[in-house]
């Protein structure tokens, strides 16, 4: 007899626990405003990323097409994956002195893990992280980029 009472009690307590769970489901069914799904490709224009978001390494150029990279290769040494390769050349200054400068700042996006170590290592703040994130391309070669713009040169006074 006690067994039957216990069994019936368990059935009702079980049904109660299911009803409690379903109440939560009904709550969200009737409260549409609490749904927080983002419609990603449609909200591209309003999507804001935080300043520190690590999407891709870029080199900042000012309006005179000048950057701050001296070609010291600190970022190349700091990188764990050989993502950065700096090709240097020698500029001859008006006084006739030879000066080391970058020819090409090659950046392999396909190898980059966005660890931020190169940006931290840079002594002149020449490179920074950009907030881009849609990196898909059809050809792998497009992921190898040259970061310094053509005809650009190092800013005066940056050593």
């Amino acid at each position, binding site marked *: 007899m006690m067994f039957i009472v216990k069994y019936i009690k368990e059935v009702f307590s079980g049904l109660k626990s299911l009803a*409690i769970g379903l109440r939560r489901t009904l709550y969200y069914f009737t409260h549409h405003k609490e749904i927080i799904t983002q419609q990603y490709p449609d909200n591209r224009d309003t999507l804001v990323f935080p300043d*520190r978001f690590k999407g891709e390494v870029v080199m900042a150029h000012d309006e005179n097409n000048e950057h701050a990279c001296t070609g010291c290769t600190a970022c190349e040494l700091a990188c764990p994956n050989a993502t950065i390769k700096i090709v240097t050349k020698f500029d001859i200054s008006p006084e006739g002195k030879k000066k080391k400068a970058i020819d090409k700042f090659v950046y392999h996006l396909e190898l980059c893990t966005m660890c931020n170590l190169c940006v931290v290592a840079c002594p002149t703040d020449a490179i920074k992280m950009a907030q881009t994130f849609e990196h898909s391309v059809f050809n792998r070669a497009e992921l190898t980029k040259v970061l310094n713009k053509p005809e650009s040169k190092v800013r005066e006074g940056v050593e």
Partner: protein
Amino acid sequence: MVEEISSTPAGDIIINVGPQHPATHGVLHLVITINGETIQKVEPHLGFIHRSIEKMCESLSYRQFIYVTSRMDYLSSHINNHACALCVEKGMQVEIPSRAQVIRILMDELTRIASHELWWGAMAMDLGAFTPFFHAFREREAINDIMEETCGARLTMNYMVPGGVMQDIHPNFQRRVKDFIALYKSKINEYSEMVTGNIIFQNRMKGVGFLSAADAISFGCTGPTARGSGVSCDIRKLYPYEIYEQLEFDEILETGGDSFSRYMVRVREMNQSVRIIEQLIDNIPEGDFQAKTKAVLKLPKGEFYQRVETARGELGVYIVSEGGATPYRIKFRSPGFSNLSALDHMARGSKLGDLVAMMGTLDLVIPDIDR
């Protein structure tokens, strides 16, 4: 494989679960011997996601190798990085600023909540309930947004560096963490309403996958898996690092030893993490966020070991240095590997349908098991 099948007693069947199976949470391959519905043996096969992280670290400098460890236990990547940074600091004898210590603990505990949230959703999904997964991700998303703002990434942050943290916290950090705690407290009741109190869930968890305290110790289980069997093993309490000994929090212990106890340990642990965050969030000391270190880090000749409590258990980092700029040998003692070894013992004699419930409560992250 052919010999194994021929040597199986009559009536036994060998089935494969994985390496591609939604319940294994990754590329884990289980070779299960069953007799009818009863499990005779569970044999995990590893190696599908081996990336030789330990060997890779030998060619990287002490600053560089930390980012690789985010890829081991990717759900508690902050805590992995923390362990490596602590081990390097131990070798260099660097005193790190108190601001960095507090930031590190805040990040660790946020990561622990995020990890347990994901586990909770995935656990319920393993048992057939799909809605809790989305509810858990709502809270986890709030943590990920905080991480994105301060560390710049959502999963593999690489925020801990030897000597402190990489950047100072974002000006919005404190406000957003407080918002998260308010959100968490308003929603935590849903967890017990939807899953913990549910009769179907309780019947599937209680008395399933029993692991005694003695077995938990002999298999080397740590973290919530061992604490569910009543083994006190919280590294934050037993071997406190950073400023954990000054904080007020409880080590969660359940004595049931079954799947439900392990479930309850994790759910209650989230509340303790919130308690730690509440103590620290208004008391972040002023000062530097990073100690001054040399450009090229070199550890003196010797061996260094540091253990921390990740969301899954004890993570140990063992560095052997020959005095150079790169480690001579690195060994990681990962919690998931030891916890998985107890699965065979737990599952023997139980039904095949309960195996997924046991695996869920072990909180397996396969890249952590198979580095």
